[in-house]
Every structure is written in C-alpha cells, then in structure tokens.
C-alpha cells in the first residue's frame, strides 16, 4: 500500500466529521452575520429616528463579535483534537487496526507521512473554506448595509489585517502564510511525537503521558531558554537565522523521535 492509497484511506475516514465541522462553522458564522446585521439595522433605525447617527460600521465590528471568535476557536480546537485522534482511534478496541497498519510490508513512516499530510490537507481546507466564507460574508455585509443606507467604513483587507485571529491566518504576504503553515506542521509534529511516545510506553508504565510530556517539554524548554539568552545579544536579521535554524532543529528532532518510537518501540 503506497502513500497515496493510505492518504485516500485516512481522508475518507475523516470526511464525515470534517464535513460536519465545516457545515457547523459556516452555518454559525452566517447565522451570526444575519443576527449582527439585523440588530445593527434596528439600532441604527432607532438612532436615526432620534437624531443623526454619527457612527460608521466596519467589517471588523462583525469579526470582533464573540460568536465569530468562538467559531475560529472551535475550528482550532477541533484540529488539535483531531491531530491526537488520528492516531488514537487506530488504537481503539484492542488496537487491531493499528496492528494491521504496523504489519504492512512498507515502511512504517509511510503511515506517519499519510497522517501528517491528511492533517495538513484538512487544515489548509479549513483555511480555504474560511477565506471563501469571509469574502462571501463581506459581500453580504456591505451590500445589505448599502441597501439600508448605513455607512460602511474600512476595507475588507483592513478588517483582516487588524484582526487578532485572522491576521496570522491570512498575513499580508503569501510567503509569511507559508511560514505560518510550517509552524502549524511543527505543532502537529509535536502532537504526533507525544502520541507515539505515550503509546510506546503505555504497557510498561502508567506514567507514560507524563514521561512523554517531560521529554517534549525539555525539547521545547532548552531552545526557548537559549533564545531568551540570545535575544538581547543578536540583531533582528541574525535572530531570524537563529529562529529558522531552531525551527528546523525542532522539526528534525520531533520526526526522529516519532520515527524511533514508531519503528522500534510502539506496542499495541
């Protein structure tokens, strides 16, 4: 079974919960948009009756609403949860599914690769759906307010750029977007490494999750301490090189750890 077949398999297994998540997010956001526009229009009408309303609505007002922020939070939480679940579900029951995967003649890292690519495809898919949804929401937002003769300020780009959650998701430069995706890959690699260490030790000790956390905690703490030591001694461009090297180092070590436990120590 090659990588593509495994990938197809993983994606198929994720399709149902993934589609439910997307539907939930899109419906929640559009419902909030509808409610937001309805309440703002009512409020504006009321002010218009009593005097001249002197405030201008921006798309950022809608994006700053709790339901919208919550919808983004739910998506992030779901992806973090799924990064664990994509492994743990294979260990469910008596771990027969994982057993089948491990007994495949191909290298075990293909299983690892397929799960990583599946996660990234799902995350990029969410980014894409959210971007398209945002554009549609802006069209609905501005055309509704225009039709009600309610002044709209600011542009779509500005609203995205100054939003705490959306600006790192959709930075003004596409290269930065790719760099942020690398950071997301790194988070997933840490989660994968945690699961594989924990699953390798669970039959030997009850403390396996704590051991996994301590190992990965040390992996995080040592470079971060070095970073704070170096921070005030290096220039911005030198710091960027150090951070770049650090990220590459983290990636290599998490993949190496995962490989070590997946190929040599994993027990079902």
């Amino acid at each position, binding site marked *: 079974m090659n990588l*593509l*077949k495994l*990938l*197809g*398999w993983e*994606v*198929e297994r994720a*399709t149902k919960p993934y589609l439910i998540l997307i539907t939930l997010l899109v419906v929640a956001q559009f419902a909030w948009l509808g409610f937001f526009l309805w309440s703002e229009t009512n409020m504006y009408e009321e002010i218009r009756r009593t005097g001249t309303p002197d405030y201008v609505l921006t798309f950022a007002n809608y994006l700053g609403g709790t339901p919208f922020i919550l919808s983004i939070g739910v998506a992030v939480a779901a992806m973090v949860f799924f990064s664990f679940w994509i492994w743990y579900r294979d260990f469910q029951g008596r771990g027969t599914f994982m057993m089948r995967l491990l007994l495949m003649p191909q290298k075990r890292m293909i299983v690892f690769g397929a799960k990583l690519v599946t996660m990234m*495809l*799902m995350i*990029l*898919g969410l*980014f*894409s*759906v*959210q*971007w*398209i949804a945002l*554009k549609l929401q802006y069209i609905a937002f501005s055309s509704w307010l225009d039709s009600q003769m309610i002044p709209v*300020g*600011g*542009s779509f*780009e*500005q609203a995205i750029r100054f939003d705490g959650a959306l600006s790192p998701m*959709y*930075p*003004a*430069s*596409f*290269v*930065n*977007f790719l*760099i942020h995706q690398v950071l997301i890959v790194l988070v997933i690699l840490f989660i994968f490494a945690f699961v594989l260490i924990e699953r390798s030790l669970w039959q030997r000790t009850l403390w396996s999750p704590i051991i996994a956390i301590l190992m990965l905690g040390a992996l995080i703490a040592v470079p971060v301490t070095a970073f704070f030591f170096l921070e*005030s*001694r*290096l*220039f*911005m*461009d030198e710091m*960027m*090189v150090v951070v770049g090297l650090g990220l590459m180092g983290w990636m290599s070590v998490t993949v190496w750890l995962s490989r070590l436990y997946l190929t040599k120590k994993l027990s079902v």
Partner: protein
Amino acid sequence: MKRMWNVAALGAVIVIGLGTFAFDMRDTKAEWDLAVTTNPEVWKDQTVNLYYNTEEGEKERFEVTIDQSQVTTDLNYIEQALAYDDEVDSSVRDFYRQLSGLSFVQSIQTPDGYIGIGQDGNKEIAVFRLNGQDVTKQIFGTDVNGASELMDSPWAGLFVRAGNVHVIYRDGYGENPVTKIAMIDEGAKQIKIETVKLQDEAISSVTGTSWAFRPYVATIDADNRFIPVSMTEQTSVTEGGETYLSEQEKAGLHAYDVETKQVVELMPDGDMWNATVYEDQLIALQEGGTELVVDLKTGKQSTRQVIDGSVGTTSYVGDQLYHARPTKEGAVIDVYQDGKAISSAVVKATNDEAKALLPSTQFYVE
C-alpha cells in the same frame, strides 16, 4: 480509486480558496524611477521614501534610489531580515551589539566616532565609544554617586564637552520638574550632577541625539558652546473649578549654553520641525523658505533665502536640505547646501499602478 476522489475534492477546495487568497494578497506592482538632473554624486547613497496613505487607512511605502524602486510595506519575514541586514552597516554592528542588551539607550555621532550611553535595568549605566573598529565600554554601578538618580530619570539627550559625555535629564515628574545635567567622567569614574536653573520649564530633548539603533546620523562637534534643545513649559489651567498643571512644548528655538549654564532663546517663534544639527551649526528652515543658521560655537545667527516660492515637503540629511515639490508625474526634488541649490532630481511614476497612487503620495528624503 474511489477513495482518491475525497483527496482530489479537498485539493480542489484548497486550490480555489488559497488561490483566491494569494491573488488578493499579491504585491503592489507600482514602480518609480529616480532620474538625477544635476550633480549625481549627491544621490549616490540617498533614498527617497514614498508614503502612500489614504483616509481608508490604505498604506504603501516605497524606497527609490538611483538603482531601484522597491516596496517596503508588507515585507515577509525573510525580506525584512535582508532589509535590516542592508540597513545596519557591518562596521557599526559591534558597537550596537554592545548597546542592544541594554534597556534604554541614547547615542550621538561626533568627529571622533559614535558615543552611546545606556542602562541595564536599574543595575548599571554603560558608556560606549566607537572609534573606527574599536569599541570601549565603561560601567558605572549603583555604588557610583549619582548613578541611581540618573537611572531613575528620563533622559533628554547627550552632548560632549571636554571629552566627557554629558546627559541632560529630568529629575522628578508632575509639578516643578528639575532639569539636571550629569557629567560622566570616565577617567575618574565619577558622575557629577548640576541643576539647570529654569522656571516652570524643562528640557524635553536634545536635538541630534538618537534613540537606540540609528547608524546614519549627522556628526555633531564635540565642543559646541550651544546645545540645541526642545523645551516644555508648565501652565496652570482652571477648568470647572479645578486647577491642574498642563505641560506642553514651548514654541521657539532654544539652546543650552554650556558656559553660562543657562538655556537661551535663539528665536522666539522659530519652528524646530525642520531643523538639523550638523557639526557646529544649527540649521532651521523657517516659513517662507528661509534658513536660520546658528553658529553653535559663538551663537552668531544669520538667515538666508533658500527656497523660492511655496514650500513643499522638506527634510534634512546632514547639512543638506531636500525639498520635494509634487508634479503631475511624480515630484521634483531639489537639494540645497549652504543656502545654494546643488542638485536636482525627478521621481516619476513609471507605470499605471504608480500613477494611480500619485494624488495621495508624499515624498521625503531620509
């Protein structure tokens, strides 16, 4: 095969969504050209900054030199690092590396090199000197008399007199602030403090002192008698039966006279907005395009007509005045030195994207 359809569908969603995002976030295509009409030597290391700002908050920045035009807004992390690498000259890196660990830093450039002073929290004061490639560092801990007071106070700026660094600072907040000068004697490892006699006034900044990393600053002579400063004044305001103190910038040009140890008024209503301290001169552009020149060794003042007609946007680089006037296609930038026009250049929008930005674009040489 059937399973691959899920992957293909997800891939298609990603391509459509992120394709739209990449298209929306594409870089500006506006391009500019700097053509020097006279005296190209002046423009060899000079950069024209173009600021495009609209009321809707759209912003674009460009840097134009005789070799290239480049956008400087929304640079990605790699471009930012490369731009910074270009900006900080390798010859001054050692000096600034010494300063970068400090919580607060000020520096000036004298004919003998850079002099910087900084503090590490409330633990110590450090004085740095850079001469050529040599960096020297002198530390003043809390055991040195006056060091603690200097660390607790906001600094207005620096000057050098008889080889020693002097820090003008403000002792105390709120009512009746006292302006003091700390002379840092590196040889004797002492700090001597003197109070500047001022009534309801304080020195807020010393013209020509830069904060933290500014490698390209004008050279200031070490033994100037007059140190150009900005002042604030406190007035008592009564509103709704309540009286409170209000502090604001004081109009006019002022200088601290190191011989009489007093602040003198060089000009009552002069504007410090466009002013430079270069070696032993203070040059300030006045309304109507005249320059006031003050000899900082003697205090002698003179004026000269520089810009004829209306004044556009101006800036000083060293002792050179750059004056940009907008035209239909961009801007004309004239350069003046010692009151005389020495060079002229034209910045032009070279494509439609740049032409569209023209009505809201300002031009500065920095």
